[in-house]
């Protein structure tokens, strides 16, 4: 039996015009995983080989992929919640840059400890996100506009903070260097195999999965995205939840910024340019609807990995970067197309 999740009368009028071939519903439930598996298989097939070994499947390569997507992945997790409430957050890349700059500055210039620095930076990211959420939820300014402006403001603040240049991290004891502990972020654990950022990404992913399944907050997020008025009439504190969602997005962007600074031994105000679009792409490929109310964190994780594998296999094969742009464009549309097809079927 097909489950009809939308209101039948709201259907596009022409929906029944074409002959429809029916795809099992199960396919769509796992749509983003299906796409992920398809891309994974394609990557194996197209992977270069070295001494007969499939380079793509090399465990180090796979871990590299997770490391490479860890920042976008963390941004995308926050973005998932934002998009679930039918919002959008264009500022995450700029907040990442601000956080990376701030981290480097606090560690190197102000000689703060690691814990202090991380706390301050996370607080800044959260406050920035919450402010945007307040402007959008309370004053009713569209999230697209608020976060577009927020992007500029965060970028400007970061440049002013650092004087425009990146701040390099040097480790050691004493003044004017960062505590050695912070260099953990560019190291690997388990015998130097698993990159710490990949671990953090996995951790954030697990927490998000638990939050979505187990908390009242997540149910409220879905309800607001599905029907804000109904949510309000059910006594859900809509404004507070929306502000919280943007605050989470800002917090995670700041976390990604700290990781960014740690991974690259530097915080630069220009870091993270355009990351917001990659994060949004990961969320959408993962099956979350930009109209809100429908989507999963696990889909987003799959979407982020899919993008990472795509980048990796294109790079492994030395594909021309312009052709890469075309291929990525087409794959994003195809992924969204599957989804659109799905909702039309229903």
């Amino acid at each position, binding site marked *: 039996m097909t489950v009809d999740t939308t209101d039948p009368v709201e259907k596009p009028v022409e929906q029944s015009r074409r002959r429809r071939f029916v795809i099992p519903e199960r396919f769509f439930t796992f749509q983003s995983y299906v796409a992920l598996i398809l891309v994974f298989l394609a990557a194996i097939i197209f992977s270069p080989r070295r001494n007969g070994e499939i380079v793509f499947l090399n465990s180090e390569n796979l871990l590299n992929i997770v490391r490479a997507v860890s920042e976008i992945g963390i941004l995308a997790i926050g973005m998932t919640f934002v998009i679930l409430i039918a919002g959008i957050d264009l500022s995450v890349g700029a907040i990442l840059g601000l956080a990376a700059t701030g981290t480097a500055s606090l560690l190197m210039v102000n000689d703060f400890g690691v814990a202090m620095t991380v706390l301050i930076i996370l607080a800044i990211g959260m406050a920035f996100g919450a402010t945007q959420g307040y402007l959008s939820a309370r004053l009713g300014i569209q999230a697209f506009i608020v976060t577009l402006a927020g992007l500029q403001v965060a970028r400007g603040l970061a440049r002013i903070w650092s004087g*425009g240049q990146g701040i390099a991290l040097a480790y050691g004891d004493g003044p004017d260097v960062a505590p050695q502990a912070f260099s953990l972020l*560019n190291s690997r654990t388990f015998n130097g195999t698993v990159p710490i950022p990949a671990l953090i990404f996995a951790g954030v992913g697990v927490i998000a999965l638990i939050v979505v399944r187990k908390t009242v907050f997540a149910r409220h997020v879905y309800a607001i995205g599905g029907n804000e008025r109904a949510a309000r009439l059910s006594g859900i504190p809509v404004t507070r939840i929306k502000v919280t969602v943007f605050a989470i997005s800002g917090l995670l962007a700041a976390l990604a910024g700290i990781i960014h600074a740690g991974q*690259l031994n530097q915080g630069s105000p220009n870091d993270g340019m355009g990351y917001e679009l990659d994060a949004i792409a990961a969320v959408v490929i993962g099956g979350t609807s930009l109209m809100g109310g429908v989507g999963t964190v696990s889909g987003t994780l799959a979407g982020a990995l899919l993008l990472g594998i795509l980048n990796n296999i294109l790079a492994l094969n030395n594909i021309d970067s312009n052709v890469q742009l075309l291929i990525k464009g087409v794959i994003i549309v195809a992924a969204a197309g599957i989804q659109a097809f799905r909702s039309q079927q229903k």
Partner: protein
Amino acid sequence: ACGTESDVPESAGGSAQPDEGTECAGADGEYLIGMSQANVAEPYRQQMDDDIEAAAAEVDQFEVVFADAAQDNAKQVADVENFLTQGIDLLIISPNEAAPLTAVVERAYNEGIPVIVLDRKIEGDSYTQFIGADNTEIGRAAGEYVATELLPDGGSVVELKGLPGSTPAQERADGFRAGIAANPNIEIIAEGVGDWLREKGQSQFEAILQAQQAIDVVYAHNDPMAEGAYLAAQAASRQSEMSFIGIDALPIPSGGIKAVEEGRLSATFVYPTGGKEAIATAEEILVQCAEVDKEQILETELITVENAAEIYARNATQ
């Protein structure tokens, strides 16, 4: 040189200046200098602004105002127009691209405003002085360094390129190929595109490390990408198998000279900003009322661990 007021008016701005009416007020004047920067999001260009600011602070008569075109030719045209509206006395411009900025620079020049063009030329000769380095030359120097010093017996090179479509990326690639041509045993086995960015240098090189077993030298079009590649190699514990070279050698803590000094990069090549030189030229034109040469080509310098500390101390703005 221009102590007397009876100096001929053409003293300022070189012979090609069509507007002969400007008088040189010399050391008594106050001068507003407009600096139109292509994009401060590039560390090299931010450094150029910083150099200019630092140098201008030493000249009492100078006030410098800055505009940032954020990588947009059209914005830079408007920036120059706005400088003209404000009535600047001298224009320093580091054009985003040559052809699009030519017309507006020409206009400034024809209005009698001395123009110093930094780093990237404009077309024609409607400017007072060009100060810059030669990217092809630097690429060639890097190639020759690889061909003679690093890999005299040949070997495999990975190239990490800058943003496709940008002139320096093209020239640093072409020059490098010319430089290694002398040694036929050197092969460029892979090219990655790092868009000038550290993180893209890192992830691109991670993939290349997987695909390539034997890499001798990594040549990156700038230091950040070289540093990114180093991070990738370090994570794979392969950093000692190969040498990393970059370009730019900015004298800041996050720049390439420090990276050489600290042993991550084997070499980098100074791509001088010309900021200091531009203010010096401006001083000659406005304060000393002297004529200046049409071109000032800045030499690159090879930075290795031997000279890194010394050159850092010399070039740093502070």
